[in-house]
């Protein structure tokens, strides 16, 4: 009989097999980082403790800890064809793209041909064995293994991912799509996507980071993204989550902003049994600004947790958060917005809002926008709402001949519109407009009678 392994031991076994299969020629710092990751993980494990665990208070990761996932060491046996997944995400033929299948770079699905000189769009695997300068300087400096067991594991199993480096003064005009696909396996797998985006002075990029599941069954994505913006850099960042219905997804995004840089991000989240989107932005130089918006849609028994943190460290920075949730069935969502205005951060402007549309009596939202202000000359607002579908609006639509489904669709799409209108990348906005107004049976408004 196989011995029963603790959750930490399960990953240690995987790690040993993983380490042995690593290619030769990697720099010492990469191996050190992995060792730090696994050591940290051994120390802290996954954050399953419920008591005194403020960051994970509303999200029980017990099901992730108790499940057994296999980390595929070998490259995937088969690469899916574009036709198998392109409808699941905002795929545009003329965009630049890096595609990863089960955590490994898939060059045949990727296209970086149109990138301007000096711009580096590459797989991390390649970067770690060749010129690792940008990677060495930045990787795991912001999303360190010390944050929690998830970032520790991601560092321990670091192997591949996306490296985006736009040097000083270069604006990448063509949008860049990063796709992390998980395919069907005989037994549940775990992958560790890693993304590093480094923008030089006055560099600009439009980036869509997509996590897409082709597997109906259970799997686990433990993703970490770091975005570094030098002075005057501008990033339009979209995080698109469309994992399988049984998937677990834990994502950590760390953003470090220099002087006068802007980071504008919109998240769209759908699918997943348990999902967490951890975002932390450091406004570390005067004049930096960020916009963090998001739209989450949950149904069935799904659980979606957005933990959005902004640290205002320096004066004259602004941040705004606008999130909206559409909750159906017995699903549950969490929004924790946390803005800290540090003592030196005078003239800070910060807003935070979260609004939720509950389509059923059983859906549940825990929303807690919070502000911690240690400076005295600031302008900050926050608020949150949750409500059911407006029965009068619903009747109005139906009185014009629209059946229950169409009326629901129009109201859901209407609720999403404020977030969609904030997306400046037109093909993505149009894609999400179609998606949120399409027939989504699990998102039908359930009538009282």
């Amino acid at each position, binding site marked *: 009989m196989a011995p029963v392994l603790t959750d930490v031991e399960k990953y240690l076994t995987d790690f040993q097999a993983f380490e042995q299969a690593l290619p030769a020629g990697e720099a010492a710092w990469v191996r050190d980082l992995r060792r730090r990751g696994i050591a940290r993980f051994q120390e802290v494990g996954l954050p399953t403790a419920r008591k005194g665990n403020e960051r994970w208070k509303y999200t029980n990761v017990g099901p992730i800890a108790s499940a057994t996932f296999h980390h595929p060491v070998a490259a995937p046996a088969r690469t899916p064809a574009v036709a198998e997944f392109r409808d699941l995400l905002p795929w545009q033929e003329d965009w630049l793209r890096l595609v990863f299948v089960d955590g490994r770079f898939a060059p045949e699905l990727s296209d970086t041909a149109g990138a301007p000189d000096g711009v580096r769009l590459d797989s991390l695997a390649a970067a770690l064995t060749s010129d690792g300068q940008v990677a060495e300087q930045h990787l795991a400096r912001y999303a360190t293994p010390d944050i929690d067991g998830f970032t520790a594991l991601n560092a321990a199993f670091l192997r591949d991912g996306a490296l985006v480096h736009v040097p000083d003064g270069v604006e990448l005009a063509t949008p860049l799509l990063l796709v992390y696909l998980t395919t069907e396996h005989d037994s549940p797998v775990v992958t560790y996507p890693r993304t590093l985006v480094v923008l030089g002075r006055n560099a600009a990029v439009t980036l869509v980071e997509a996590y897409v599941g082709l597997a109906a069954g259970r799997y686990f994505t433990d993703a970490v993204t770091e975005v570094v913006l030098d002075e005057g850099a501008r990033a339009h960042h979209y995080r698109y989550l469309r994992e399988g219905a049984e998937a677990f997804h834990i994502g950590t995004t760390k953003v470090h902003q220099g002087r006068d840089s802007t980071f504008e991000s919109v998240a769209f989240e759908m699918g997943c049994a348990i999902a967490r989107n951890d975002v932390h932005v450091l406004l570390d130089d005067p004049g930096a600004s960020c916009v963090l918006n998001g739209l989450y849609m949950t149904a069935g028994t799904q659980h979606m947790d957005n933990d959005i943190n902004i640290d205002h460290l320096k004066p004259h920075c602004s941040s705004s958060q606008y999130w909206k949730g559409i909750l159906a069935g017995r699903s549950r969502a969490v929004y924790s917005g946390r803005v800290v205005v540090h003592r030196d951060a005078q003239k800070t402007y910060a807003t935070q809002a979260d609004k939720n549309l509950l389509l059923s009596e059983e859906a549940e939202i825990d929303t807690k926008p919070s502000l911690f202000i240690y400076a005295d000359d600031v302008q900050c607002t926050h608020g949150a709402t949750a409500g059911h579908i407006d029965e009068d609006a619903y009747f109005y639509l139906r*009185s014009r*001949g629209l059946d229950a489904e169409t009326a629901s669709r129009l109201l859901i799409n209407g609720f999403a519109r404020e977030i969609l209108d904030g997306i400046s990348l037109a093909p993505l906005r149009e894609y999400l407009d179609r998606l949120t107004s399409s027939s989504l049976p699990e998102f039908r408004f359930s009538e009282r009678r």
Partner: protein
Amino acid sequence: MAEMEGSKVDHREPLLTVRNLHVAAGEVEILKGLDLTVYPGEVHAIMGPNGSGKSTLSNVLAGKPDYEVTDGEVLFQGRDLLAMTPDERAREGLFLAFQYPVELPGVRTRQFLKSALDAIYQHRGRKPLSIREFDKLFKEKMQLVQMSPELMQRSVNEGFSGGEKKRNEMLQLALLDPKLAVMDETDSGLDIDALRIVAECVNRLRGPERAFVLVTHYQRLLNYITPDFVHILVDGRLVMSGGPELALEVESKGYDWVKQAAGVGS
């Protein structure tokens, strides 16, 4: 009422037949045996004081939840209207112009009306309009109701003035082409110019195939729309019926006179 007009034999089928309609909201009975027959092409005005059940009648005809029909029946083109969902009623050709049109933030007017028209066309076995055909029709109807195209760029009714909302109701009426339009206090909250525009729309949309039921508190709308029949609703029943002159009589003598003349509690 039309069917009580005496010796005149009408071979047409009634569009709407309301018989002994009793309706309650919660514990309170609001309609207490209402009878009404409407033939195609007719315009009926139903006047009544506050609390007489005017809006209840409009809402029950359109299928708004929150009301309980405790007795009686309503036939629309011979079919049981009360058994239909609100959207079925609309597709069958019933239209309610709301007293308080609802604002629908984020719902685009064009998409909303195209969806509604598609549903109605499909029900009538007609091919849905192409985007181009729809836009042409839409533009035409906007001109009919003198609506600024700029308003149509906004979400449905969002930030519209009272008059703009009512005009939007008329636009929808014109576009969806119902057989019976029930107008629930369309005149309330309108200034005289807006009232005139709304009345003009009704007059233009009158025709041998289409009937109107105008529900109103005041006679003034009837200065611009001449109804075929006027009924007075008091305490949940139509207690008096007549021609257009009845409206003027009620206006000058007041509803207390109606109650006395009809012998209902004051």
